[in-house]
């Protein structure tokens, strides 16, 4: 299966009469057309659109999701299948990507569970989305709308907006600035190729703890799946979509699922020092029976691949730590070496136990940073969204919002700060 990502480089965003990427790399957006495309009169009272650019004195809060604009121009299916497109399988053909642009969705679904993006200052250093040119959508629900229906309306509108931007640019005739090609051969070939190299698969854990804590695969709530295999290219076409309102620092936004650094890295090393044979997706349910079932099933699939090694990434903390450790132990006991990717909640001084669970077998662990670290975010000239949630947002606390508009928060409050797929700059080394 081969996928070409046709990347258009976006260097700015502005409102204008039509939606296209101008010669200087500015994404010009027709606000009127965008709002018409994403309108949801049944559920949303209003949708406001705004722009936030790198270096501006802007704070976006509370952030729900971030999505990279993409649109399939060749091959079966369409981006975000089962969500805003048909359920046909994706991952092959050609997909246009507006690299450097992002759609940021903002709403107060469960106020304390959303995140902060600062476009400048210290906070900007901790979120990858201070470097993207952002089209921000702020959603007001209709009176009486259920929270999970509000979440769904925001999720679908954000995905539609991302599709609209890339689709419009494609239809304006804009060609790609560069092309990236991703290809994994069919199993019969890949298993025989690079015979001398260790076979490695990726166990991709998805947040699925319950309502408002869900991730969707081809539109299916991943809580309901048995672990299964997915082609790495499918993730690049939006087969996996974030639908959760969990802690901002380590939830995998849809943008991160589209640009999973673990998958990119495994692709990069394929044929050099490893034989990357595939991706297994699994869930992080709350019941212990589900945990055992999924862990047992996922490791069984890895065993059927005959892999030597498994890279395992987690999403979230607390309950998912138990799944992470269970997956690790089962794999190691089956003779499969593991490397875990997680973040830490080690207290403000970093001295407390980092994870809620541990095992001797977990002896190769990559950390994405300590989410309890305190950071002070200076006041911004402009707020997009609602900053009254700063005192109660996860990672914030009573008194977080200072009279001068500055914020004292834990990294937990910053969108993507300790991303457990490594889509951030924090880390630690032991030597």
């Amino acid at each position, binding site marked *: 299966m081969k996928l070409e990502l046709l990347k258009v480089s976006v260097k700015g965003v502005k409102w204008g009469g039509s939606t296209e990427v101008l010669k200087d790399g500015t994404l010009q957006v027709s606000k009127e057309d965008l709002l018409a495309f994403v309108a949801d009169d049944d559920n949303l009272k209003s949708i406001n659109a705004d722009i936030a650019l790198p270096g501006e004195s802007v704070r976006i809060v509370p952030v729900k999701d971030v999505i990279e604009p993409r649109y399939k121009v060749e091959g079966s299916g369409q981006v975000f299948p089962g969500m805003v497109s048909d359920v046909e399988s994706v991952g092959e053909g050609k997909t246009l990507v507006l690299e450097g642009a992002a759609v940021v969705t903002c709403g107060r679904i469960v106020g304390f569970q959303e995140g902060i993006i600062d476009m400048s200052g210290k906070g900007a250093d901790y979120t990858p989305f201070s470097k993207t040119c952002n089209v921000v959508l702020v959603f007001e629900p209709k009176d009486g709308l259920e929270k999970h229906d509000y979440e769904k309306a925001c999720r679908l509108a954000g995905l539609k907006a991302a599709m609209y931007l890339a689709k419009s640019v494609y239809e304006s005739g804009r060609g790609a600035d560069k092309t990236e090609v991703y290809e994994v051969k069919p199993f019969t070939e890949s298993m025989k190729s690079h015979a001398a190299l260790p076979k490695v698969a990726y166990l991709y854990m998805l947040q699925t703890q319950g309502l408002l804590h869900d991730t969707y695969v081809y539109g299916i709530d991943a809580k309901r799946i048995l672990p299964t295999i997915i082609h790495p290219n499918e993730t690049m076409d939006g087969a996996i979509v974030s639908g959760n309102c969990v802690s901002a620092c380590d939830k995998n936004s849809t943008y991160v699922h589209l640009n999973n650094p673990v998958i990119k890295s495994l692709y990069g090393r394929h044929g050099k020092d490893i034989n990357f044979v595939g991706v297994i997706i699994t869930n992080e349910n709350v*019941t212990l029976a589900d945990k055992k079932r999924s862990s047992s099933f996922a490791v069984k699939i890895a065993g059927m691949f005959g892999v030597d090694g498994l890279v395992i990434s987690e999403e979230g903390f607390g309950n998912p*730590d138990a799944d992470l450790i269970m997956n690790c132990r089962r794999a190691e006991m089956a003779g499969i070496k593991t490397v875990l990717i997680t973040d830490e909640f080690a207290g403000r001084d970093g001295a407390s136990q980092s994870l809620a669970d541990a095992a001797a077998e977990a002896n190769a662990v990559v950390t994405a940073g300590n989410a309890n670290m305190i950071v002070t975010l200076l006041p911004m000239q402009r707020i997009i969204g609602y900053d009254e949630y700063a005192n109660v947002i996860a990672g914030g606390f009573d008194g977080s919002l200072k009279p001068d508009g500055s914020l004292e928060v834990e990294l937990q409050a910053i969108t993507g700060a300790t991303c457990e797929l490594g889509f951030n700059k924090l880390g630690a080394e032991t030597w």
Partner: protein
Amino acid sequence: MLGGGVPVVLFPFFYACITNNKDLAECVDHAELINGPAISVLTIARDMIHQGWKLVASPLYGNFKPAQQPYRTLILSREKKDRHIPADRYSLELIESAMNIFRECEIKRIPGDMPDEIDNDYKYVDFALIEDTLRECGILRCDLHRYSGG
């Protein structure tokens, strides 16, 4: 302490629900409503595990630190046997680990200590996260949306 779990005809188990979430307790058959912080819920569940009950779901469900979420709901099961049942080791590991995390937290949250709008969100999310498990155990009497208040 517990007047008895809920016998479920199809399965040879009793189920019990220990919670400090009033909204949830009103929707669950024979829930034990605890008037106190989350650590009290965990402590009662820990004692029950020593008496042969097993955890059905993780005590650390949801992505919350103890400093954030005042509500906690635990579901336990017990085989329908009269004889002594030894404590389930995995359940004990999970509950002791969770209790340590709550004990180490300097900020102690108690139900109702935040503005109503936020407090309601916390109750709602607590219910949302455990709703499917309650349904699977056959002890959920009414769905979450009836209590969300929009």
